[in-house]
């Protein structure tokens, strides 16, 4: 399965552009989308899930134009939007049956399919309760279950780990990894560690443009020899921040350990180089592209 996105542009109005000349080709596996707020991640996902039309550009799934023929991808699409809602009066069973109908899934096996999914997201015991009484994490889990109802071949998860506790996040990552063999999975998150652990490839976006795309190692190379650590007195922190691009700080007795980005020949005194991680590379790329 190949999803080809070519020169995609989305303009909301004269002054607001969601995506600009965005091109990317995806095959089975997990693509992690990283980018600050307003980078265009949700816009891209909405266009791929065919609920938003691009102003320009093309989207082909296995050679079929899905802008003109959205039904082709909708049959095999699993989509978890960022801020989806539910009908509070329905219980989990009824809600999943409703979503199954949307996806065109039916037959005798539907109930069993729903039970397996509810069991999988550990909502079986609450399945008869109105969803309106669910917690945020439970709603997010029902969102994950609905995305998997139709054995999707294209899975889009927009900020899927929001509301999940650390244990749920670990389980979610495992689930996604299992699905990746025969699926195109696109996953956006603000939490770099979520993407770091599971994505085969990472695309960094900013201002509606693709900054770079590649394996995690490729992305991390951008920040190689540019990440340093140093101990700074708390009183000197404001001055330090004005000079350097600070990634992270941690308190260490009466000093602050600072992780920052700098060119090799312009580091602060007593700095030590450290190995760049994906988060470092992401921050380096987005800050240097402002």
């Amino acid at each position, binding site marked *: 399965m190949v999803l080809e996105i070519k020169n995609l542009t989305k303009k909301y109005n004269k002054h607001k552009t969601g995506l600009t000349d965005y091109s990317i080709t995806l095959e089975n596996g997990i693509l992690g989308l990283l980018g600050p707020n307003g980078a265009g991640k949700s816009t891209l996902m*909405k266009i791929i*899930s*065919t*609920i*938003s*039309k691009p102003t320009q550009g093309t989207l082909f799934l296995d050679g079929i134009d899905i802008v003109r023929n*959205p*039904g082709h991808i*909708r*049959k095999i699409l699993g*989509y978890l*939007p960022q*801020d*989806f*809602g*539910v*009908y*509070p*009066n*329905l219980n989990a069973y*009824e809600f999943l*049956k*409703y*979503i*199954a*109908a*949307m*996806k*065109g*899934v*039916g*037959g*005798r*096996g*539907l109930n*069993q399919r729903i039970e*397996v*999914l509810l*069991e*999988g*997201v*550990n909502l079986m*015991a609450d399945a008869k*309760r109105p969803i309106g*009484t669910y*917690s945020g*994490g*439970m709603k997010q*889990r029902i969102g994950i279950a*609905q995305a*998997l109802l*139709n*054995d999707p071949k294209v899975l889009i998860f927009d900020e899927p780990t929001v509301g999940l*506790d650390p*244990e*749920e996040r*670990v*389980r979610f990552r495992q*689930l996604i990894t*299992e699905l990746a063999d025969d699926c195109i999975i696109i996953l956006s998150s603000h939490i770099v560690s979520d993407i770091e652990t599971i994505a085969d490839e990472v695309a960094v976006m900013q201002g509606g443009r693709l900054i770079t795309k590649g394996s995690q190692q490729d992305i991390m190379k951008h920040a190689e020899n540019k990440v340093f650590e140093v101990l700074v007195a708390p009183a000197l922190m404001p001055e330090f921040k004005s000079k350097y691009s600070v990634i992270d700080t941690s308190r260490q007795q009466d000093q602050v350990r600072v992780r920052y980005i700098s060119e090799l020949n312009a580091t602060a005194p007593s700095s030590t180089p450290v190995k760049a991680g994906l988060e470092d590379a992401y921050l380096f790329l987005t800050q240097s592209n402002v």
Partner: protein
Amino acid sequence: MAYLFVPLHSASYTTLNVPGFKGAYNSAWAGYVSAIMTTVMLSMYGFLLVNSGIKKDIDTEVGLIIACTPISDFSYLLSKMLSNLMVLLTIVCCTFVVSIIMFFMRGSGYAFVLANFVVPYLILAVPAMFLVASLAVLAEVFLGKKNVLQFLIYFMLFGITMAAINSRGANNLMTLIDPFGLKTITSSIAHEISSQFHTDIQNPSFGFIFSGQKPFKVFIYEGIHWQLPFLISRLLWVGVSILLVYFSSFFFHRFDFKQTAVSKKPVAEVRQTNGPNLAAAGINRSLMPPVVTDYSIFPFVKTELLLLIRKGNKWFWLVNIGLWLAMCFAPLAIAHAYLLPVLWFLQVTRWSDLATKEKTNRLHYFTFAAYRPLFRILPAQILSGVILAIAMALPLLLRYAIAADLYSIVNLINGAVLVIVLAVAIGIITGGKKLYEIIFFMLTYAVINKLSFADYLGSMVHGNRIGYIVILTGLNAAALLLSFMVRSYQSRHL
């Protein structure tokens, strides 16, 4: 609407109705009648327009943020009341401007006196809007999300007030307890006519009355001299409005609903699951049966019906069942002309969000990304609404079937379709449910008052039967077409 408030003498309807008389189109008549009609109409429909200020804060969860700010309950409710007032006064301003424009456009030859427009608006409409704005807050505090009950109680109060205003006789007490200040004006009009024509007339009444052209005499109305007790009574009503808000602040939930629920009955305990929330084994896909495709719309119809039935307070179904049973036994004409329109209107909150609830509940990402949503989900929503409307009208349909009255059956079905496609079309176009609720109320009011132009369910006699059916069917088709066209665009432009 404001354009229609002060009809010309040649018009086939009246708004301030004094049988046998019409006022000369001078500044006082144009200003007073326009102010009176604005007060009456906006007092009636304005409530529907503004009675969801607190609900919006609940739905958007902004209320939770407000609840932990230092703002007092009274200040919050007063701010809601004032924002309601601003909405209503904006409409009052619009009708005020239109009334002046109309006066010049119609060029009746009388002098323009600005005070004859400004003063009645200030003295009649503004205090009345205060009251409507505060009653909307009061209703939200005490009746929460029970919208239909809010409407019913409000319109019952409104009806009683208007009946008192229309009754004969005026004294100081009547002046004081008239919240809209209309009694004084109608008495002055009656007095003016009596003195000009030496005849005793009934008190004028308000509302759009289509009576065709009848012989009439023209009287000159110059307005009234405002008496101090009357002016004080108007100020008193402003004070009462604020007091009502103050009173309701003692009962305001401050967005703490769980506490309220506990005091009534124990809430179902939220399960605390031990161990990982996503099952340890994850989703065992080998246990899943293969996907069987089914693109029929019946699962949607079933769910949509379920949503319609579960909406609102379940005890309200007792009222529905009562009216439904009454339609089985009441005289056919009464059941058709009064019971069915009322029963249908009582479902207004079920139908008003028929095609907007996915957006309100943020489910439109799923519905718009579904396989062929335009040909499956939207038709299912319409179908489920029509099924419910027809189920409500079933006693009448059966009685007409027994009487072999095909014409009435067609009209009832057309009417059932109309109330639903109207809800869908207006919901899709405006994105909200308020406009439909107001229009449906006006339609019900008009039908019950026998205004034949609004007869959407064939409860009145129409000269051209085929023509009537064609018009209704055409309206239904047009609303359907519009709904599909707009939804088609929306579903690809999120």
